[in-house]
């Protein structure tokens, strides 16, 4: 594993931490005061900072550090997480996310913004504190800054587990810190690692070595708790160290050494009152020469070996290595070497198992592997269908054991297919979380107060769908903020709360995912939309449109009602692009709007792009698949309900409404003349714009789940055809692109439609 891979993992983890951070902050924003939430937020920032430090991403570290400091004030209840505070923090989370992606992809970040936020965060950490004391880390705006002040004559405070404690110091010392620390002072550091420290792969010796770099150091090892070897738990931690350090550095620098271990050890750092030190020591001083790190001497061998056993076992490195090092130690210390080695090896195994369990219930898998599996399962489904078909053709009794076996096989394949699809299914949560940031930013830009409420964010859908959902959703959210919600003044005048609400929800409905975006704004101004459409030559001035049709005008290319073009929206590349991306996903979008009460966009998307429920039909001797979702109903036309309309058009009357009849075979050029409708079946389909069309096919073969195969891979896009699939007889069948066929029936030729689809 090279550095880049490790870095990639770090960035993946950053994504997760950022999501955690944001959801935590939003919870706090909603009034959650659970200390665990605060801790989770703090941990997220801390982990990012830690990882960034390891990769030398200085910008990220310095920002995370300031952020962390302020969060710590919240954690220690010194800063009340009010709405205003959280607003700054949410913005900081956004900047942190920007910094992470800038570190990953190159890019740059708006420095003035991050600098402004750093100031705001620092102000929160200092200024808003009820007492004039600041946090220990607060005066360190950036790692490169001047050494933080050392509290000169302050009484040391006891530390808690976290190692983070407010240390009172006077602000006077802030400016004068150079001379106070130049002389060098002696600190007493008591460092007692707990077993967790080793199990996380930290090593006490390395920490001590880092500490020794700060100045002259003498170390006493406290071995009181060390039991006899046969009673020893190889994973436990028995040693503590008392360190006397003469250094010019500040207490913060000393604490910084233990930064990543602070949760897993007892750490006390205080200025030594010279004389007191020796008597206070309840431990036997053991000379601890740091040279042993490189060249173990006989005297310290045992200690070192035991320690290394601790560490290697804990870190779950290779069990063999561990065993041998413990064996060496044991051989020198006592005769019970076998049992010790066995114990260590067993412990190593236990630990590996525990580590695996602790690592969580998920694994990271390369998406390609999952895709390969899905493809194979697709083949399996096709093969199984082919097998069934040939058995049915050759076996007329229908009761043989082959048939029963086949039925079981069919169920199994279906189950395998569902499970494999479930691997790709992901909750929509990450996309929804991104939206909350967009709402914040855009609302800030246009000076509106808007709250985003999300619902059903754990609804799962195929990863491809999720990936392609973000863009149209972003467009829509921007539109909702910019056009949907009114300004606070207007809202108040209309008797509404000044804060607008956008509700984003997801749910499963009949095998599809339905995503709803509702705002409580002013709704669509139909008069203006209509006027605008007339101005832009989208409709005739005297066109008679229903409310629904007017609402749908906003999906027309080149439509924008915004009076002035802003950064956010209004350039006329909005809803038509949204609509096209939703359609490209095999989905549909509709809008309902009530004047004064708001608008609701409803998107219905397939759960997966790999399989599709379709109706298998025959057209001019060819087998076609019509997506089931498009079909409203099927009917057998009677001669009396078919009405000629003009030279070539025909209408079919369905419950007294007339619907254009579209001959699929003619549109696709499978036959030269129109078929007789009475001999076929009509599929009533819902098309874009809300209109209905009756598609004429020759016969319906049945309903089937089909695996979608790309036509573009080896051929090109075919107008009127969405994709291909392979049927039970092993032949390729084409999947009809209902919207394109309907559009073609409106008089638009299929060819230009195709080039549009290709560019869009």
């Amino acid at each position, binding site marked *: 594993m090279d550095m880049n891979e490790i870095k990639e993992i770090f960035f993946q983890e950053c994504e997760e931490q950022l999501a955690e951070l944001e959801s935590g902050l939003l919870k706090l924003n909603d009034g959650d005061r659970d200390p665990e939430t605060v801790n989770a937020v703090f941990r997220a920032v801390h982990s990012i900072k830690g990882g960034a430090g390891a990769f030398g991403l200085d910008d990220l570290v310095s920002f995370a550090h300031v952020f962390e400091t302020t969060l710590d004030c919240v954690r220690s209840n010194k800063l009340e997480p009010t709405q205003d505070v959280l607003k700054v923090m949410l913005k900081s989370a956004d900047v942190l996310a920007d910094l992470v992606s800038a570190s990953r992809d190159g890019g740059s970040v708006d420095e003035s913004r991050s600098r402004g936020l750093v100031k705001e965060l620092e102000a929160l950490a200092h200024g808003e504190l009820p007492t004039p004391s600041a946090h220990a880390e607060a005066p360190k705006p950036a790692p490169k800054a001047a050494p933080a002040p050392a509290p000169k004559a302050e009484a040391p405070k006891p530390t808690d587990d976290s190692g983070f404690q407010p240390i009172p110091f006077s602000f006077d010392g802030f400016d004068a810190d150079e001379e106070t620390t130049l002389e060098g002072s002696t600190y007493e550091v008591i460092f007692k690692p707990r077993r967790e420290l080793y199990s996380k792969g930290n090593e006490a010796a390395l920490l001590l070595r880092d500490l020794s770099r700060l100045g002259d150091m003498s170390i006493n090892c406290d071995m009181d708790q060390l039991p006899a070897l046969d009673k020893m738990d190889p994973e436990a931690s028995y040693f503590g160290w008392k360190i006397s350090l003469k250094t010019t550095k500040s207490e913060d620098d000393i604490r910084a050494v233990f930064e990543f271990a602070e949760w897993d050890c007892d750490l006390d750092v205080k200025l030594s009152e010279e004389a007191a030190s020796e008597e206070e020591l309840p431990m036997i001083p053991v000379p601890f020469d740091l040279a042993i790190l490189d060249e173990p001497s006989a005297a310290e061998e045992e200690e070192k070996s035991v320690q290394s056993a601790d560490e290697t076992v804990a870190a779950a490195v290779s069990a063999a290595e561990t065993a041998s090092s413990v064996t060496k130690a044991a051989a020198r210390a006592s005769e019970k070497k076998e049992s010790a080695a066995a114990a260590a090896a067993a412990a190593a195994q236990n630990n590996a198992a525990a580590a695996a369990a602790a690592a969580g219930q998920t694994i990271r898998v390369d998406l390609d592997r999952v895709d390969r599996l899905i493809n194979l399962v697709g083949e399996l489904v096709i093969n199984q269908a082919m097998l069934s078909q040939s058995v049915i053709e050759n076996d007329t009794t229908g009761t043989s054991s082959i048939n029963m076996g086949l039925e079981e096989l069919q169920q199994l394949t279906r189950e395998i297919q569902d499970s494999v699809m479930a691997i790709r299914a992901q909750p929509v949560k990450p996309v929804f979380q991104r939206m909350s940031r967009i709402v914040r930013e855009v609302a800030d830009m246009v000076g509106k107060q808007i709250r985003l409420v999300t619902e059903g964010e754990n609804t799962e859908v195929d990863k491809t769908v999720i990936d392609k959902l973000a863009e149209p959703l972003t467009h829509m959210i921007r539109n909702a903020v910019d056009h949907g919600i009114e300004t606070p003044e207007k809202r108040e005048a209309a008797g509404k709360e000044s804060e607008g609400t956008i509700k984003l929800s997801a749910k499963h409905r009949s095998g599809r995912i339905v995503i709803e975006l509702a705002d409580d704004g002013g709704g669509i101004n139909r008069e203006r939309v209509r006027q605008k459409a007339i101005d832009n030559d989208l409709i005739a001035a005297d066109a008679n449109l229903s409310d629904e049709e007017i609402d749908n005008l906003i999906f027309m290319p080149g439509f924008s009602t915004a009076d002035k073009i802003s950064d956010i929206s209004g350039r006329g590349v909005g809803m038509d692009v949204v609509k096209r991306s939703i359609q490209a996903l095999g989905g549909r979008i509709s809008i309902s709007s009530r004047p004064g009460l708001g608008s609701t966009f409803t998107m219905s998307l397939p759960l997966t792009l790999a399989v599709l429920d379709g109706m298998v039909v025959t057209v001019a001797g060819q087998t076609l698949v019509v997506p089931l979702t498009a079909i409203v109903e099927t009917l057998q036309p009677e001669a009396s309900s078919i009405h000629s309309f003009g030279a070539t058009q025909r209408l079919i009357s369905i419950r007294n409404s007339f619907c254009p009849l579209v001959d699929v075979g003619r549109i696709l050029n499978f036959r030269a003349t129109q078929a007789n409708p009475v001999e076929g079946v009509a599929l009533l389909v819902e098309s874009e714009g809300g209109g209905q069309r009756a598609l004429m096919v020759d016969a319906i073969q049945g309903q089937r789940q089909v695996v979608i195969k790309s036509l573009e891979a080896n051929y090109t896009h*075919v107008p009127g055809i969405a994709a*291909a699939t392979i049927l039970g007889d092993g032949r*390729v*069948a084409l999947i009809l692109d209902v919207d394109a066929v309907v559009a073609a029936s409106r008089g638009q030729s299929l060819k230009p439609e195709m080039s549009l689809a290709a560019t869009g």
Partner: protein
Amino acid sequence: MSYAVKNLTQGSRELIAFRIGDQEFCVNIMSVREIRGWTPATPMPHAPGYMMGVINLRGAVLPIVDLSARLGMKDAEPTARHVIIVAQVKSKVVGLLVEAVSDILTITDENIQPVPEVSSDLEKQYARGILAIDKRMICMIELDALFPEKESEAA
């Protein structure tokens, strides 16, 4: 069959020869993925005349081109004896319908004669040379020239 299997030396190459009607053609063997029997293809709407349709090649959708029609000769009437040469053309895989595969040739550049001046544009576009082997004339064709990247525009 006259197999001229030699060790491939510098400048020599292997070609696969096939028959369409009474003419013989050959293509570079490196672009051929496999050869398989004819199976009925699903016709595509709005496709050019030489496009026979698509077949299922172990799960992938493979377009089948009637090479006879593509080369400007009469349309093929596929039978069970026809074969499909599955070939890689640029990034795509296509199936070429031919009457039969006749030979695998190992030739050097000296064996290739230039294409004589003929009036037909189509021949000039795809023919890259002519081989004289055992008194037969085999026309070497360039698949990339037959299937330009933007096929939809050419159609």
